[in-house]
């Protein structure tokens, strides 16, 4: 057959264009359902809050009163919620810093060093992510029944340190994933060149790898912070939900719901939503594409591996 004479006949241009449009539209509709679900949940919270605020106020100053006397403002005035916000900010920050402190060396080792059982360890590190949150809390509680942890139990279990530890135990797994993805994306050749230039492994890490991982660290920090903010199950089991003691924002929602105060629960939820959105915007702004690699796990592209030519 002569060159240029294709086998078979492709579909007609119009049918091809229609097929492409239908394909993209189908993908958009299926994905859009989930986007609408998220948007709907957030909008419902806001609408509920506005409706309750307006219902509680009347007259010409209704809108002003709706703002000043809204459940959110009420929640912010409540000493218990204020304590909860303060403890949340402190514990989330501490657990995020601890997570990154552990995730940098662990992520680096998982990315750069080949050792027996590496794949097993890689899967092992995902356990806190896939375990039911209540099981994480229960496991922590049981762990502190055994020495040497039991010696510290009176100062940790159902105390403020338990809040940080429970948040850290889950958030750190996300930070490790992020840091591993970050180190996977840094060309190992740079580090190898640094070593041939006279650097020890530590110097190569400090002068070359670490500076290039700064965005990844910010991403890991903010994601660990956001994850800690949303932690609830492990906290409930391991730290309890004692007001003005181990109460953080997620437990505030639970406690307010328990006493039938739905307005306050929704108000605290909206405070958390605002915090999470701020953190996610910061993550996207600072971390860029790296922030989207959080859940890539072992599928991250590895550059400059064992190349042979």
């Amino acid at each position, binding site marked *: 057959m002569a060159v240029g004479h294709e086998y078979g006949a492709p579909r007609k241009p119009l049918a091809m264009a229609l097929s492409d449009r239908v394909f993209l539209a189908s993908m958009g509709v299926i994905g859009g359902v989930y986007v609408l679900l998220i948007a709907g949940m957030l909008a419902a919270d806001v609408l509920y809050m506005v409706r309750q605020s307006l219902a509680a106020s009347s007259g010409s100053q209704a809108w002003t009163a709706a703002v000043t006397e809204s459940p959110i403002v009420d929640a912010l005035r409540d000493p218990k919620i204020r304590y909860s916000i303060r403890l949340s900010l402190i514990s989330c920050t501490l657990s995020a810093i601890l997570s990154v402190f552990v995730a940098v060396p662990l992520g680096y080792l998982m990315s750069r060093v080949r050792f027996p059982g590496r794949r097993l360890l890689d899967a092992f590190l995902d356990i806190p992510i896939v375990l039911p949150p209540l099981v994480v809390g229960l496991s922590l509680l049981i762990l502190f029944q055994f020495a040497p942890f039991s010696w510290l139990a009176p100062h940790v279990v159902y105390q403020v340190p338990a809040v940080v530890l429970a948040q850290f135990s889950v958030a750190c797994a996300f930070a490790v994933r992020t840091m591993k993805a970050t180190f996977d994306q840094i*060309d190992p050749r740079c580090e190898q060149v640094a070593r041939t230039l006279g650097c020890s492994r530590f110097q190569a890490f400090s002068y070359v790898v670490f500076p290039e991982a700064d965005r990844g660290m910010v991403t890991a920090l903010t994601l660990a912070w956001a994850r800690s903010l949303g932690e609830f199950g492990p906290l409930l089991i391991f730290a309890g939900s004692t007001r003005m003691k181990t109460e953080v924002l997620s437990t505030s929602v639970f406690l307010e719901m328990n006493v039938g105060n739905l307005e306050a629960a929704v108000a605290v939820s909206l405070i958390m939503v605002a915090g999470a959105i701020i953190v996610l915007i910061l993550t996207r702004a600072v971390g860029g594409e790296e922030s989207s690699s959080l859940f890539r796990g072992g599928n991250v592209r590895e550059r400059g591996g064992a190349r*042979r030519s």
Partner: protein
Amino acid sequence: MIRLDHVTITAGEFALRDVSLTIPSGGYGVLMGKTGSGKTTILETILGLRPVTSGRILLGDQDVTDRNPALRGVGYVPQDGALFSRMRVRQQLGFALSIRGVDKGLISQRVGELTEMLGIGHLLDRVPTGLSGGERQRVALGRALSFMPRVLCLDEPLSALDGETRGQMCELLAEVRVRTGVTTLHVTHSLDEAAQLADPLLRLVDGRVAVEHAASGDKVSEPPVSDAKVPREKAASDDHAERSTAVVRPTKTGRLDIQSSP
């Protein structure tokens, strides 16, 4: 001199067994071979980035088989340059000397020499982002030469460059060889690069290194194993093997001690 003496390298399921090669002092060895034949593996072994299972690696008269990459005195230019993205060109060129604790004045002097030799003076305050392929490789070459290594390893350094830039870089590499006398191993697929630079030309076939064209003045001890016809480059001086190599070593006071070594 670069000498691999019956070296066996195992990298996962890949293995190179009983590899021997010699590049005389001041020589410019070009190593060719098929993709996946193990050229880069040999280069990484010389750099100390990959351990050997058996055999010896000698650089000059020193056995460096078990020596840390940092202590081998080998400059390395990878395929894409692998420039440090957060450092300006000036910092990259001075990095090796800075790590070695060399005095700032001497670092500045050495950076000046390198920029003059490589024509990158206008790039000193730039970061790697935005540099062209040729500029990146010039900076990578300068960084590798900054501490005056006795051996230079180039891993397909020109493969990503256009024809014109590649020609310019070949001329530059030949000039660098003449000016520094550094013993070089250059891994490439390009017959043009081999034609312009090889002295000797080595070919890796089935895990064995054959000398296709001996270094200037040397006799070929092994028969050619390939039918590729590569003209031998004569431009470089024939007496390079006898030329001394300048070696700069930082002293405890931070000053550079410039010595001549055969």
